[in-house]
């Protein structure tokens, strides 16, 4: 139950000074964390938005192609629509795997060090 959990203990950690933030911001470890996040998330975002827009544009301007029947009454339009669902699930899974493997350990290490004041 949500309310039975102990109160958060984070407030007791000290908040690093602006100088410490600036220092960590320039550190190789942080620069690598940021690169690892951005080089994954940014291209992937552009990719799925392009794939979605392609689907919207095909719906608009390629009616004949989208109406092609594949099996029974199931046509290309429906299949591509459902494919958007599938790619959404896959991308969510892929990003979460990347984040757990590549981002979380680095982020955690920096956070622990900064909050303990070392």
């Amino acid at each position, binding site marked *: 139950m*949500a*309310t039975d*959990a102990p109160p*958060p203990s*984070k*407030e007791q*950690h000290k*908040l*690093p000074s*602006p100088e410490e*933030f*600036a220092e*960590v*911001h*320039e550190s190789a470890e*942080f620069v690598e*964390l*940021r690169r690892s*996040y*951005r080089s994954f*998330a940014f291209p*992937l*975002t552009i990719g*799925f*938005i392009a794939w*979605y*827009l392609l*689907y*919207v544009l095909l*719906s*608009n*301007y390629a*009616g004949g192609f*989208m*109406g092609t*029947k594949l099996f*029974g*009454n*199931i*046509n290309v*339009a*429906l299949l591509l*629509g*459902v494919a*958007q*669902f599938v790619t*959404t*699930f896959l*991308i*969510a*899974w892929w*990003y*979460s795997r990347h*984040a757990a493997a590549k981002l*979380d350990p680095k*982020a955690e290490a*920096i*956070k622990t060090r*900064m*909050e303990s004041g070392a």
Partner: protein
Amino acid sequence: MSPVQHTFLAANEASEHRPLIITLFALFVLATLGITIWAGRQTKDAADFYAGGRQFSAFQNGLAVSGDYMSAASFLGIAGAIALFGYDGFLYSIGFLVAWLVALLLVAEPLRNSGRYTMGDVLAYRMRQRPVRTAAGTSTIVVSIFYLLAQMAGAGVLVSLLLGITSDAGKILIVALVGLLMIVYVSIGGMKGTTWVQMVKAVLLIGGTILITFLVLLKFNFNISDLLGQAAENSGKGAAFLEPGLQYGATGTSKLDFISLGIALVLGTAGLPHILIRFYTVPDAKAARKSVNWAIGIIGGFYLMTIALGFGAAALISQDEIIASNPSGNTAAPLLALHLGGVDSTWGAILLATISAVAFATILAVVAGLTLASSSSFAHDIYANVIRKGKASGAEEVRAARWATVAIGVVSIGLGALARDLNVAGLVALAFAVAASANLPTILYSLFWKRFTTQGALWSIYGGLIVAVGLVLFSPVVSGDPKAMFPEVDFAWFPLKNPGIISIPFGFLMGWLGTVLSKEEPDAKKYAELEVRSLTGTGAH
């Protein structure tokens, strides 16, 4: 049988079983009020009121996010849009789901790491507090009110179907009742009460949708091709019903409207304040990510089932009957429940009552989430940080939030009666367009663009907001169309129903322009701090 008789049939069917319907509604209301009072007792400080104590698990929050997101638009609106326009209605389902990737990849975790209670916390982080928080509060309230309008329209529609109330007074009464309930939920239960109401609602909605989907598929021996075939035939439009273009394919302008809607849907979610504040209810960014994943799974499953709801309604009910009941198809899902059970049977009436109660629960939970987002933003961004200049105590903030809840409740009751005949999904799409134009550019620039300045933030929030709302005002949604809010007048010169294609790029452009033209230097230290905090969670609340 004429369509008019059919509508009365649905209402009569409902009226015979009115005690059952009222009992189901009352049960939900009583259960949720109980939760609210329980949650109210546990709400002691500002973190409890705004963020539910930040102790919800990722799964609980994922469920609540789903409950907050799957609104009357998703349930009533999409089913109706597919039932009337076939494949074109399905775009809503796809856009509403894909949009979650923007929230997952770019917004949820940094927001959880660097904010405290509101969207404004992140936008104002490295900017001059007072102007940016005023702007963030303004756009939060405007977006939420657009969204509220849609939910209120859905409530009015449901009640006229169920209780046969067609008089304006009757509808206004029910809208007032919804408004009153939401004031109680939010002002007493805060985020904790609202979250539990949303979880209960999500379970009910998913359960109800699975039931209807199962019954539809059973009718067609689980052969989707046969379902689609009969939908196409029964719609009177043949194969075109299963292809894109029925609603938007007629002219170059309507095709542009389709693109505009598509863009607004995919970029809107990550700028919706009532969704964003949900990420503050979990302990850390990792839990925020996991709750988005749960939400994507739950919401995705639900939207896949809208295929069965929408095409099922088209296959089993005549177009005339759907339109006669509500010109935009908003009652297709409850009508489908009635037909699945059998129009003259008790079973049909029970199904109709159940699905209507689910829709009612859906509306109440979303309305509560929206009200909480706007009253939080008023109290935390505008009252505490602008009016009191950061000197208000937590207790004073919460008191302000409770009063703001009452005020917003009254405003949305007042607006509720205006939008009855518009498709609920179309109305929500406007809220998405405003969110994507005013909020998303500023969120992304704030988090990822070092040079971004206060002036850039203000230009992009106000620029996106004014252009999006302005274009809606002069669109066929407001005037000059039989289904418009004011059908008797015509001052519509903007041809598209959704402004996204113009207003979203404009919001981004203004943010860039405001920044490069500003005389102030960006605060590099503050940006370094924001970046470290948003990526690592150091010092997160």
